[in-house]
């Protein structure tokens, strides 16, 4: 989990000054949540890796201009979630051809935990927009107001997506575990 905001600000400052060690600490702090968030939205380990990687690269490219008074996490998560939604939409519109799906499947080993399969499967049945708000709320623990700000949505839209998404999940999981 990321450290305190003061520690993080100090790390960002040192990273901006060129410290690779602090950049690595920042990366290690934020990687798990960024990757899991991407994975839960796209349900493809290779794509999640690409998305999280691109997001970190985008963040790193602009880190020197980053305003240290702002928290790093929401900034990164906004990039991750928006890219994950874009990827999922694009995937829906246009299936990849060629060798990509084979390697994607190889990379997407199912988790051992049956509950993991269940939840991941249930999430996969939601639209990417609903997945995104649920991941932001329950994995990344943002408030609905913060999610609205992150995604540039009205708060009412966030609340309704959360409600509908959770209702659908509850329904699906009840059936699965019955």
């Amino acid at each position, binding site marked *: 989990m990321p450290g305190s905001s003061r520690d993080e600000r100090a790390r960002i400052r040192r990273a901006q000054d060129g410290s690779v060690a602090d950049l690595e600490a920042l990366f290690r702090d934020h990687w798990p949540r960024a990757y899991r968030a991407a994975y839960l939205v796209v349900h493809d380990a290779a794509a999640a890796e690409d998305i999280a990687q691109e997001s970190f690269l985008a963040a790193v490219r602009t880190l020197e*201009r980053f305003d240290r008074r702002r928290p790093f996490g929401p900034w990164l998560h906004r990039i991750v979630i928006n890219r994950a939604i874009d990827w999922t939409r694009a995937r829906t519109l246009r299936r990849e051809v060629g060798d990509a799906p084979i390697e994607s499947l190889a990379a997407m080993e199912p988790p051992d935990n049956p509950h993991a399969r269940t939840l991941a499967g249930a999430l996969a049945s939601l639209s990417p927009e609903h997945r995104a708000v649920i991941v932001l709320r329950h994995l990344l623990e943002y408030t609905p107001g913060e999610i609205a700000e992150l995604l540039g949505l009205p708060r009412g839209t966030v609340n309704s997506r959360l409600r509908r998404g959770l209702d659908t999940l509850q329904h699906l999981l009840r059936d699965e575990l019955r």
Partner: protein
Amino acid sequence: MSWRDPAPNEREAEERTWEVVRRAWEERVPLARPNVVRRRWPAFAIAAGLAVVAAALSPPGMAVLGSLRDAVQKNDNLVSLPASGRILVNAPAGAWVVQHDGSKRFLSGYADAAWSPHGLYLAAARGNTLVALEPNGNVHWKLARMHPVAAPTWSYEGYRIAYLDGHALRVVNGDDTGDRLIAPNAVGSQLPAFAWRPGTHELAYKNARDELVLLDVDRSRVLWRRPTNGVDIEELRWSDDGRRLLVATRPAVVLDARGRTIARLPAQVPAAFLPHGESVAVAVNAKGRSSVLLLSGPRYRRRRVIFSGAWSEKGNLMGRRDNSDPSGLGITLNWAYAWPSNRRVQYATRAHDLRHQLHVRDRPRVTLLRRGLVLFLGADWAAPHGGCAAARHRNVFLLRCDAFPAKGGSHK
């Protein structure tokens, strides 16, 4: 799955990604920190300071400083281009399309962007994706690959795009169809080198067996191949008529269209064909002297010196290596450079001002001008058929534009 459970492959992906992030961080162009003094000083004080410093400058340095002063006084470094048309500039955070009036559009996250031949579209890399987009950012198509995409290059009329998928060289049609593998490894230990032969769909590249190959991409037929004997090829450049191929090795070699050696040049790189001709300009640094030679004739034995250093009582100014910055404005007065005084065609400014607009990824190289003959050696051509070129030397950028079409043609 609990929200706290690791996702599949999380740990392995973390290690892979950290390596990529670390490399990107190390290869970034560090941002010049804003000079606190400068922020507090009014503009007239800066101009006055520049004027004082200018008095002590050599003529080439004065030309640079004049441009710098222009940039500072106008409070924008790229007010307008010195010719009609647009310029595409690759920056660390993305690509910029700069209009003639200086207005800019930032295409965030794109790398290695390249104009289509008539400037209507761009091909660019975005992580593992090859993207064709309009200069206003509208994406036409994307092609996802398994490895980082790099160096998209259009064929002469825009019907083919060659690009790197990791180390593999691939070609896709301009409408995103027919993607195919050309060579599994076209990078080797050094830089990737490939080039479309003008007016054809023939692609010259170096393969994993250390051979230089010319392939007819449409027929999948190798036209010729020749060993490179393990020599690293830094760059391949065709003459505009497609009859000569400059192989930037050490020393550089000129081949004919059938792959036969015509000449070995007396220099390494940088070297370049002159526009619309087969003569080659090479930069030679020897015996403390920097010269540009124009080599011509059937065997490139005819030599003409068209530039020779910037000499003063202190010796060759191009050999200077003092990067001190007494003004604190990022002006290194005693660093190596010889700038001709034709200020109508050059724009120079501080690095941090242009950092997000101009970025030449390669090593600093010589960039020279001479009246009636313009050479950009080692600079990135930023527009097709001439157009603008941007070059960077230390913390000074140079932007030079020829007259070039403002509008594209009817094709890509």
